[in-house]
């Protein structure tokens, strides 16, 4: 299972970014073999960042996203995929991964609000 995490720096110790689609880097982490890579999120256009980031998740066969709460456009795209979103606000990538494995991260519902 692969997870995509929006991070500020290309490091496992990096803080989870305040933004999902406009984060500086995405960390793609494979829970099976613990291999990971960082993708520089150098978005060219200023529009449609949300759906583009979700497309990146789909292209990388990601099952879960850990980030700050994505915006409405990103959420609409996520809704159409089978990807789940988890609230990673305030954690480092490393901490969030641990919490995810222990089932301690809160899932962000795509269907209803609070």
């Amino acid at each position, binding site marked *: 299972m692969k997870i995509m995490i929006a991070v500020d720096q290309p490091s496992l110790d990096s803080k989870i970014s*305040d*933004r999902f689609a406009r984060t500086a880097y995405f960390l793609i982490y494979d829970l099976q073999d613990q291999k990971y890579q960082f993708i520089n999120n150098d978005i060219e256009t200023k529009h449609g960042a949300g759906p583009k980031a979700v497309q990146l998740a789909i292209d990388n066969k990601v099952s879960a996203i850990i980030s700050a*709460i994505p*915006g*409405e456009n990103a*959420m609409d795209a996520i809704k159409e995929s089978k990807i789940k979103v988890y*609230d990673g606000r305030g954690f480092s990538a490393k901490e969030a991964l641990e919490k995810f494995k222990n089932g301690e991260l809160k899932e*962000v519902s795509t269907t209803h*609000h*609070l």
Partner: protein
Amino acid sequence: MLVFQMAIVSGKGGTGKTTLSASFSYLAKDRVMADCDVDAPNLHIILKPQVIEKREYFGSKKAVLDQEKCVMCGVCEQVCRFDAIKFDGNGYSVTEYACEGCGACTIACPAKALQLVQSLSGEYYLSKTDNGPMVHALLKPSEETSGDLIAEVRKLALKGAYDSQIPLVIIDGAPGIGCPATSSITSTNYVILVAEPTMSGLHDLRRIVETVRHFRIKMGVVVNKYDINPSKTQEIEEYCKTEEIEILGKVPYDECVKRATENAQPVILYDCPASDEIKRVWENVSSKI
């Protein structure tokens, strides 16, 4: 160190966001101010920042025509859906304000005379004010990437906070519920909604509440000029009760606010009922940090 980010927004414009922000900027002991209304900023009028660092913001791309290469075929004018390319009798030229940067002309041009080039969309500044740093920006006319510029303003404000070990960023947010507003509030720790007791005030309050809910952020409401329409204020209070949103305070209509604004000063430097209530709201808000 953790930095607490607080945003002051409203669905409707002109409800008193900047009035409240300017006062908070004086009441908070240690803060970085971020004016995120980059389309029509005016917090700087009251806080009179001294610019320390100016940064250029390149938000969009625009078509640029190389006159040397142009073969005057006019294909670009035909394909431009925004009527941004015109023939003036001597040659073709691109109207910067009309160009949307779609790139159709660059593909259609047989002479490769048109290119998309990053264009300067605005500027943003790290400044100092009497009681702490301030980040603000200015978007150029006809530019539309304000949400992205706001993201840059907030990044610089947060960096300023970490660099100077200041634990609080106060964001004077953009009005509405669209991109600029969401960019002002995303990943903040607390949102203050300023509402006025009018029909559109309540209508737009409901919309911004939905938006803040989307981002799962705690919020509270300040009713400004609450006494100009007691029945609407009551409606706002009832709405907030149903939605379980705290009313942080109710600021009365006060000629003193007008005087403060005319003198480009924050209200809390004056001794008046509005000032007293804003101070009380601040006490309430600062207990959330």
